[in-house]
């Protein structure tokens, strides 16, 4: 465990800039879990995530002297992580993703719901469903295209605010909100289909 004073972002950066190995260790101890989780949810397989984490730490160490401090340290690191993962995905054969349009709610010409809407919210409260739904949601996010998945992961899994997410991704806040809303509509529809299937058998 690295020393206490390295828990301060400014001290940590100072020490990284001069290449202090204790600072590298402190950086690793503090961020590896977050970075790995974030990388996993974007690249979706262990070996790619591991390589992405290697790249992220190398970049952070080597670029520590260029970090200006206009944003929080963690948000700079998240940005490097998302960027590294997206670059990595770009080099790969495209993973099949579903078209989000097929899961958007349908409306009639005068803006009414085009199909019946069931209320399954009570059903979800059954404890036994918890694990199963968790798995199902994870599976569904994996099928989302990166554009939506990354926003979804940063806000819902990492719990960041829309402003923080926007800053990390270089998007406007309205763009983040709209992607998040669409991701949730998609997820709501996935859950609806899943739960009504369960009911039929």
């Amino acid at each position, binding site marked *: 465990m690295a020393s206490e004073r390295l828990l301060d972002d400014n001290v940590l950066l100072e020490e990284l800039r001069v290449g202090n190995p204790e600072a590298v260790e402190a950086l690793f101890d503090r961020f590896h879990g977050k970075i*790995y*989780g974030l990388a*996993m949810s974007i690249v979706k397989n262990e070996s790619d995530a591991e390589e992405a984490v290697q790249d992220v730490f190398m970049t952070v160490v080597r670029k520590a002297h260029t970090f200006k401090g206009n944003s929080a340290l963690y948000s700079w690191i998240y940005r490097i992580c998302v960027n590294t993962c997206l670059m990595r995905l770009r080099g790969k054969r495209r993973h099949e993703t579903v078209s989000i349009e097929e899961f958007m709610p349908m409306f009639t010409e*005068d803006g009414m719901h085009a199909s019946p809407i069931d*209320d399954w919210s009570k059903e979800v409260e059954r404890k036994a469903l918890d694990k199963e739904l968790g798995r199902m949601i994870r599976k569904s996010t994996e099928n989302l295209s990166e554009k939506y998945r990354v926003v979804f992961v940063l806000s819902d899994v990492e719990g960041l605010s829309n402003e923080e997410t926007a800053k990390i991704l270089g998007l406007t806040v309205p763009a983040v909100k709209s992607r998040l809303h669409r991701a949730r*509509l998609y997820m709501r529809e996935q859950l609806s289909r899943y739960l009504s299937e369960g009911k039929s058998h």
Partner: protein
Amino acid sequence: MNCKELVYLLEDYLEGTMEEHLMRDFSAHIEKCEPCKNFLKTYDTTRILCRKMKPEEIPAEVRTRLKEFVMEKGREYRKDIEKYRERAVCERREQVAALIGAYVSHRLSPNTSALFEAHRDRCPKCGAFLRSINGGEAPSPVPLEVEEHLAEFLETLPLGESPASG
């Protein structure tokens, strides 16, 4: 307000950021529309379920491997810190030169182009510099202050897209 408009505003409603006059329309509609009532409940439940998602935990052996790797790279960096610094300076210069090159030859991607022009019009230093080269070749290296600004500009671009198209 109809159902379609209501669904569009759900996030604002649940975040409590909805404007008051919309709020009245929203409540009036949902009061008498069963499908929207159900949609709201299930949408809210979806949000709650999604927020319970936990990031994937790092397996112990992966952590050990990664830590060794990172510490090793850290020691290498310390040894050759000057070399890495120089390389970083060169890289930054190249990236900025590529950005300006793409700008003068109209090869910026549409997205970057819009953001770049916004920066140009807002920032007196970069604006003056870009006017001074007037679509011609940029001096190399560009003035440090402009380089710093443009490097920072590159850092804020939307992720996952390259500045130049094609």
